[in-house]
Structure formats: C-alpha cells, structure tokens
C-alpha cells in the first residue's frame, strides 16, 4: 500500500490496499465489486440534508501506514471508558496501519477477536459468511465505497454460550495527519452468547478536510445478546458517514447506545433488522449539534419476525448555527404479527439560528401490531430559566442544567456506569465549548 499524499481514487487503490493487507482473492474480488457499485451508484439523497452536494473529490483520501497510538494518546475525557486493564479488552486504530490490540481477556473467555484481515486468514469461512450479510455493499454509494476501502477492521466472534461481558473497546483515532480511516467492525454473536462492545471515533488533531466512512455489522443469533455503544467525537473538518446495523435472530436482543458528540458533518444510521421471532432491540441516541455542523441521524428498526419488539428513544440539542435532522423509522413488514414498535424523539433548540427537524416514520404493513411515536422540537422555557436562576445559579449553568435534564431520559438510563459518565462528560464539554 502506498504511503502518499492526496491521491486520485481509482480501482488500483482498492487493489493495492487488498494486496498490502495480504487478503485472499475472494476478498479482493468482494472489494472490487463494491468499487464497481460505488462508481455506478448515484449519491444517496437524504431528505433535508445537502449531503449529496458534498464533493468527495475535494476531500483528502491519503492512505498511510501509521500505527495505532498507545491508549494514553486518546483524549483525556475518554480515558474513563478504558477502566482497568483487567476489566476490558482494547483494539485501537490509527490510520490503516497496525492496530494496538490487547485482547487477552476475551481470549480467556473463549471469544475470538482480531484485526479483520488477520481474521480472514484465521477464521476465513466465518468471515466470508458474515461480511456484507447485514449491510449489502451495493446498498448505496457510500456503503459501496466503504466496502471497497475499509482499512481499519475488527472482527469479533462470540461462540455459542460464551459471555464477553467485559467490554471490548474499539477505538479509532481518525486524526492521524494525512491518513484516512474507514473503520469496519464485524461481530458475530452465536446462540445464547453475549457481548458488549464500545466503539469510539475520536481525533485530537485539527485536520485539514478529512472524510471517514464507517460500517458496523452485527449478526446476533438465536437467544444472543449484544450491547453496542458508539461514540463519535470528531472535529469540524471531518465529513463522516456511519452505519451501524444488526440482524437479530430468534429471541435475540440488541441494544444500541449512540452519542454523536462531534462537530463534523455527519450522516449516521443505526438500527436492527428484527428477523427472528421474539427478538427485541432498543436504541438510545443522543446528538448535540454545534457551530455550523450538520448532523443527520437515522434510527431504523425493521420488524420481519413475529412478536418482535423495538423501542427508539432519541434526544438532540442544537446550538449556534447547527442543523440537525433526527429520523426515526419503525418498519413492520407483512407477517410480523404481534409486534410492537415505539419511538420517541425530541430536539431542543438553543439558538435562534439553529435548525432542527424530527421525522418520525411508521411504515406498517401488518394489522395485528402496536406502534406509536412521539416527536417534538422545542426551546428552553424562559420560566424554567428564571426559576432556576432565582435560586442563585447563573444563566449558563441554568441552561446546562435544563439541557442535562432534557437528556436524562436517555443518558440516565444507560446501564453501564462508565459509559454513562463519559456521555455526561461529553455533553458538558460540548455545551461549554
């Protein structure tokens, strides 16, 4: 793989990437098919977002061989995620180079985790069956691009009955100068197994324009449990497209916790395909828009199986001149009888120049179901502000308190205390920046 400056994107980049990583022929072909799809597909349209107008050509895509920074180089406010060495496993990436891996704790529990290209060599059949099964490489242009060019992959396999309750941290340092990072995370949770994965996309450098595309795909088999927490705290120079999606088989449970706390132009989607009967998925999503940022978030639950349940809870805060779109989709397919889908999302606008939209969607093709939604966009109530200030706290603090209270239904219910604290810390930081 070439170490280089900004380079034209073409088929050869894909070929040399695959070759540099020592990948087998089938994977090179898989990437190249994705590349062809990328070339043919039109840019996807996002209602109320001008994403399709952003020119990728203007963005620097310069692969490098940078290796992962040690944990100490991750921002101080995220250190709370790391915990003690005995309490977690870590995979840390910077650029497309050699990651820092500390996965012994998982290995001790019978869980296999490795850099994705390594996993292709060590668990070829498994990876081959799972890759692209939840997120079809040809689904849209950016997914196709990501599939062709992912360069910071992680594979996690939790075999039948294993419990990886200690969190696996997947850390991505996007800010290595001149590097591009396309994270790809593939998780297979087998029957009755369970796992907790915490992903953080961060950057402590001020970059020139940078682009990142990330895909997380998870297969959760019968009775399996996956709890996935994803944070994004990227600077305003970054344009990002992030997809996090799971497929839940019979009686499986998938829980999403997402904190979009960066300042970049971000389009993000997360959700679950509830394929198996009796599966359930919950999503709690918090987004904070500041500066001139554009934040386009979608949470999507697709019910295919009978007696499936989903709940979406989203809260967003919009400041400055930021624009935020929060889309929640509950789709119930024909035949998915006895399912229930609930969603509630609200946005709080803190500045007259900010814009916020909630777009709730219930797409229902079955009769015997329960589905409801609540959506709202509001401002800080001046009476509340006055009341809080009348007890002696200043206006800034009173506003922050109201915002914290507004986010509490999501953040206060995060079951992992470490993650809850980091989330609170990120909110506080973003509000005071």
């Amino acid at each position, binding site marked *: 793989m070439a170490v280089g400056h900004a380079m034209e994107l073409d088929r050869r980049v894909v070929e040399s990437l695959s070759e540099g990583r020592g990948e087998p022929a089938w994977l090179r072909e898989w990437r190249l098919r994705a590349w062809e799809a990328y070339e043919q597909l039109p840019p996807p349209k996002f209602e109320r977002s001008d994403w399709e107008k952003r020119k990728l050509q203007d963005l620097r895509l310069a692969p490098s061989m940078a290796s992962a920074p040690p944990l100490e180089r991750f921002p101080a406010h995220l250190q709370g995620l790391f915990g003690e060495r005995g309490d977690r496993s870590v995979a840390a990436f910077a650029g497309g180079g050699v990651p820092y891996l500390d996965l012994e704790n998982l290995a001790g529990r019978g869980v296999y985790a490795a850099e994705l290209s390594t996993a292709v060599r060590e668990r070829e059949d498994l990876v081959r069956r799972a890759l692209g099964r939840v997120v079809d490489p040809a689904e849209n242009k950016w997914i196709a691009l990501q599939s062709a060019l992912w360069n910071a992959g992680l594979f996690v396999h939790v075999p039948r009955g294993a419990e990886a309750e200690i969190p696996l941290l997947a850390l991505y340092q996007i800010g290595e100068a001149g590097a591009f990072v396309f994270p790809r995370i593939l998780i297979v949770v087998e029957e009755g197994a369970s796992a907790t994965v915490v992903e953080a996309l961060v950057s402590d450098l001020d970059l020139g324009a940078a682009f990142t595309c990330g895909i997380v795909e998870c297969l959760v088999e019968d009775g399996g449990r996956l709890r996935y927490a994803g944070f994004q705290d990227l600077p305003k120079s970054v344009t990002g497209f992030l997809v996090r999606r799971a497929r839940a088989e019979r009686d499986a449970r998938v829980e999403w916790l997402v904190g979009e706390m960066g300042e970049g132009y971000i389009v993000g989607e997360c959700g679950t395909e509830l394929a198996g009967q009796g599966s359930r998925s919950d999503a709690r999503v918090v987004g904070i828009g500041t500066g001139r940022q554009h934040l386009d978030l979608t949470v999507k639950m697709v019910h295919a199986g009978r007696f499936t349940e989903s709940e979406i809870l989203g809260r967003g805060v919009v400041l400055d001149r930021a624009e935020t779109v929060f889309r929640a989709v509950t789709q119930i397919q024909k035949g998915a009888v006895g399912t229930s889908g609930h969603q509630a999302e609200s946005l709080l606008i803190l500045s007259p120049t900010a814009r916020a939209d909630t777009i709730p969607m219930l797409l229902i093709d079955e009769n015997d179901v329960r589905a409801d939604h609540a959506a709202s966009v509001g401002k800080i*109530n*001046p*009476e*509340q502000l*006055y*009341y*809080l*200030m*009348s*007890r*002696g*706290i*200043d*206006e800034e*603090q*009173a506003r922050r*308190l*109201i915002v*914290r*209270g*507004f*986010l*509490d*239904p999501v953040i*206060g219910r995060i079951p992992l205390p470490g993650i809850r604290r980091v989330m609170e810390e990120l909110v506080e930081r973003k509000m005071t920046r």
Partner: protein
Amino acid sequence: MSGQPYLKVENLHVSVEGTEILKGVDLEIRGGEVHAIMGPNGTGKSTLAAALMGHPKYEVTEGRAWLDGEDLLAMKVDERARKGLFLAMQYPSEVPGVSNANFIRLVLNARRGEGNEIPVLQFHRELQKQMRALDMDPSFAERYLNEGFSGGEKKRNEILQMRMLKPRIAVLDEIDSGLDIDALKIVAKGVNDLRGPEMGILIITHYQRLLQYIVPDYVHVMMQGRIVRSGGRELAEELEAKGYDWLKRELGIEDHTVTSRS
C-alpha cells in the same frame, strides 16, 4: 454578609408588556420582621414579588430598591438570590430530568463558591433533616424538580429550598394556596422556625387564615398597584371581617375592573 438584613423599596413602578401594574410602591423590611401584603386578585402582589426577584418580563419604569444598601435592581436574577433574596413562587416551574436533591446541592454550592463545596454526606443529612421538619416523604429528594408535584407539594418544596438556603429576605407568594389545613400548619411552622433577626419575611396572601399561624408584625393592603393602607396584625382581622369593599369605600376607590374577594 453580616448585619441586619434590610430591604428597601421606594416608589416602585412596574410594567408588564407595556401596561403599568405597580404605580409607586414603598416598603421597608428588616431582619426579624414579618410583613404581610393582602389584596384582591390582580392588584399587583405577584408583580411586586417578580419585579424584586428580577423576572425579565417585568420592567421597572421608575423607583428604586436596595438590599442591604446595594442597588437590587442593577443585579441579575441569580445575583439577587446569592445576595440573600428568596422568592417562594406562586407557580413554581417544573424542571424534568433534574433531581430535587441535585438541584439544591448545586444551588448551595453556587453560593459557597468553588473549592468550598458542601461535603455530600453533610448535605444529605441536612436535606433529610429539613424534609422531616416539613413532613416530606424522602422520595421527594430524588424526584425531578417539581415535576408532577401536586400544588401543595410544590409549596412545601419551595419552603424546603428556603430552609436549605437560609435567605436574608424571603418573599412568600401565596404559599397557603392549595394547602389543606394540616399542610398549612406544617408549612407555617416551617416558616416560623426561621423567624429571627437573621431574616426578614414578606408574606403575600389572600387569607387571614395563614396569618393566624404566621403572625405578622405589619400588614399592608395592595389595590390597583399601590399599598393603600398599612397597619398591625389587627388590620388583617378587620379585612377578614369587613371585606375589601369596606376599605375601598373608606378610601374612595372606584373600582369596576377588579371584583373583590377575600
């Protein structure tokens, strides 16, 4: 801060959205004194309280006010509070997601300043003690600030905050409304416990009933944006017996807009 608390209001005129509501109010309250303001609905009692606290909608167009000799009207709302003014509101706001206990601790710490925060255990002990004094269920500490509280519970929560904050001058706007007789006694005791030279109190009420439990030193009657009569505690009893119409006739006030109720 030290010395005797002292609030002085001079010729206060206040407008709301361009309409003049207060038309020259004078008032002096010192530590140790309990004043009561009575008057028919809509005569400006809450307006006085809001203007003193600094509600942004209430514009002072004339007159002055001092707290302990400092220009009260030049201060922001939060500054007034930190200087020792407290207003128990007629309609306290609900703030979802913020627990009562966390809020009160934050407020106490804002007064004490950075580096001088109240130790957590000491805070909770004090809070529990004050809640017991007001016969409040311990669960109210962890409930969200005023959210879903009944009218009476909100009033009690205002008095709880007052007891925790120990203000120099406290204005209590209709803390008796919505209280049953037992609650009224508890709240009155909650206020009476604090009576002393450290604190001056202004009670706004319609009813003589509250004043049987918190006996005022001075009673003022407000009508049409002015204090039209002041006297001792017997003035409240006289009003209760004779009604506001009696006073209107005596003062020769023509009033078609305000119906009197007492």
